[in-house]
């Protein structure tokens, strides 16, 4: 649905790599062009009309984001370059100062590198411990397994809301409730979740949330860090510079601005912020009810067609979102991707930055199809036709 809104779809391309990044609607592109063409002044700086308009658009996006995730305060919305930067800020700016040796952080083996490596870094720097919540036979996180993983040393649970290989939705509300009863903070990596399902940080009582604009119809290079205001007050800025300081006369007398500006040093990605605002408007207009029902219908359609194919091994038959990861018997995932590429079908092959998931799933690499609402049943028919013919894959993969 809504295919006419996406200029890239006018090309003869079947785009099935939406977990990597989504396509951009014309409205987002136009909005950013409008900024560069008609009012490309700096933000927070000028005393003239153009700059005033920049500030207004910029802060309107903050308001849009706040309402989109149902945060309580505008100061809780920090613009970053993406989920990766948001997670690094949370971990290095807040938790590096809070955690001590032998404190435990719970993650899972299906996390993205950006929610693993910054924690690994604290293992070597602070002597904290990273532990894994076991996954069940469908690679899901169950509340029971979270319960069993908590020890008196557990201080943080840091997990994706939806993972990027399996596509399972984690029971966030139950997890935060359990965590908070045990004085544990909860960090949610929302990179795959925010584009696909509504997320309410207040109702779910989430302490920190990270997500990227480019996976939700917005531009690259923009993301969001949400944190409860009382926690963000203690997040030490990792970047110091213009825009974020109140005054500085000497090293002893540096005064920083209040939130959120304090955490947005330097000239921000203004076009990115404004483009993100337009993407959120687009998602709001369409509504998650429609997005979800289309995604589920597409996934079910694809799954039903792939399941009878004996040479295809689906890793995540169970999944709550629009991702299917699979392998073709005895064919390396990259060769499958190259084969499909010959027919202008874009899929991702590899470990999808979840390098330690292999210890749970037992396969290193997969072909990943990730759908979004603008994909169609005809596209799936085309894909399945190409995948049904094993001999053709072998013949044409090189």
């Amino acid at each position, binding site marked *: 649905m809504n295919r006419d809104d996406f200029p890239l779809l006018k090309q003869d391309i079947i785009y099935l790599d939406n977990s990597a990044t989504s396509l951009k609607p014309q409205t987002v592109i136009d909005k950013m062009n409008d900024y560069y063409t008609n009012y490309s002044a700096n933000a927070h700086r000028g005393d003239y009309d153009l700059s005033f308009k920049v500030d207004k658009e910029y802060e309107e996006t903050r308001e849009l984001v706040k309402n989109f995730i149902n945060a309580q305060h505008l100061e809780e919305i920090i613009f970053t370059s993406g989920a990766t930067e948001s997670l690094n800020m949370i971990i290095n700016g807040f938790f590096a100062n809070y955690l001590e040796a032998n404190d435990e952080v719970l993650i899972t083996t299906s996390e993205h590198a950006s929610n693993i490596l910054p924690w690994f870094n604290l293992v070597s720097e602070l002597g904290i411990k990273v532990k894994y919540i076991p996954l069940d036979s469908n690679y899901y996180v169950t509340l029971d397994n979270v319960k069993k993983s908590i020890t008196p040393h557990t201080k943080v649970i840091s997990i994706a809301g939806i993972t990027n290989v399996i596509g399972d939705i984690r029971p966030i509300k139950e997890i935060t409730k359990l965590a908070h009863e045990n004085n544990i903070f909860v960090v949610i990596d929302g990179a795959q979740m925010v584009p696909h399902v509504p997320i309410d940080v207040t109702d779910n009582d989430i302490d920190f949330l990270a997500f990227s604009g480019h996976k939700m119809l917005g531009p690259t290079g923009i993301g969001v860090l949400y944190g409860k205001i009382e926690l963000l007050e203690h997040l030490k800025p990792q970047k110091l510079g213009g825009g974020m300081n109140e005054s500085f006369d000497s090293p002893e007398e540096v005064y920083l601005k209040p939130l959120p500006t304090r955490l947005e040093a330097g000239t921000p990605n203004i076009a990115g912020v404004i483009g993100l605002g337009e993407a959120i408007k687009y998602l709001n207009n369409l509504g998650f009810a429609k997005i979800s029902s289309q995604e589920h219908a597409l996934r079910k359609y694809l799954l039903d067609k792939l399941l009878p194919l004996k040479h295809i091994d689906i890793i995540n038959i169970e999944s709550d979102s629009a991702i299917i990861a699979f392998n073709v018997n005895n*064919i*390396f*995932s*990259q*060769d499958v991707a*190259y084969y499909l*590429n010959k027919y202008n079908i874009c899929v991702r*092959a*590899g*470990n999808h930055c979840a390098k330690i998931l292999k210890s749970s799933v037992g396969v*290193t*690499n997969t072909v990943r199809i990730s759908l979004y609402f603008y994909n169609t049943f005809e596209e799936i028919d085309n894909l399945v036709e190409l995948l049904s013919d094993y001999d053709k894959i072998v013949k044409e*993969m*090189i």
Partner: protein
Amino acid sequence: MDENTKREIIMENYTHPTNRKRVDNPNYFKINTNNASCIDNLDIYIKFNHNIIEDIAFEGEACAISISATSIMINNLIGKTKDEALTYIHEFYHMTEGEEYNEELLKEGNAYSNIYKQGNRKTCATLPFRGLEKAILEQNK
């Protein structure tokens, strides 16, 4: 070399690669070679005897192009001197860049003579050669 022959060479070397095995012998030099942009990841084991490459084996996961190219490299470079191997490797690079190269020298390596047209597969074909080149240069230090 016609397209069918190229195909056959690649498929034969992919399905039955030479010396795909783990080597636990301290006389072998081990080097890892991988593609940052994709998931090909091979360990190559080389036995040097002074200037001569006495043996090469490999293990790991990679696509059909990388595996077959490794097998072809092994078939053509065992028994060669380091300098002969480097010459072969450089001619192979010239071919994959679409430049002039010594066709006769590369033998089965010509199976990849069109790969320069497929930017994203070029790095697959050169993967084992980059590994061997690095190993030779390290040995020569």
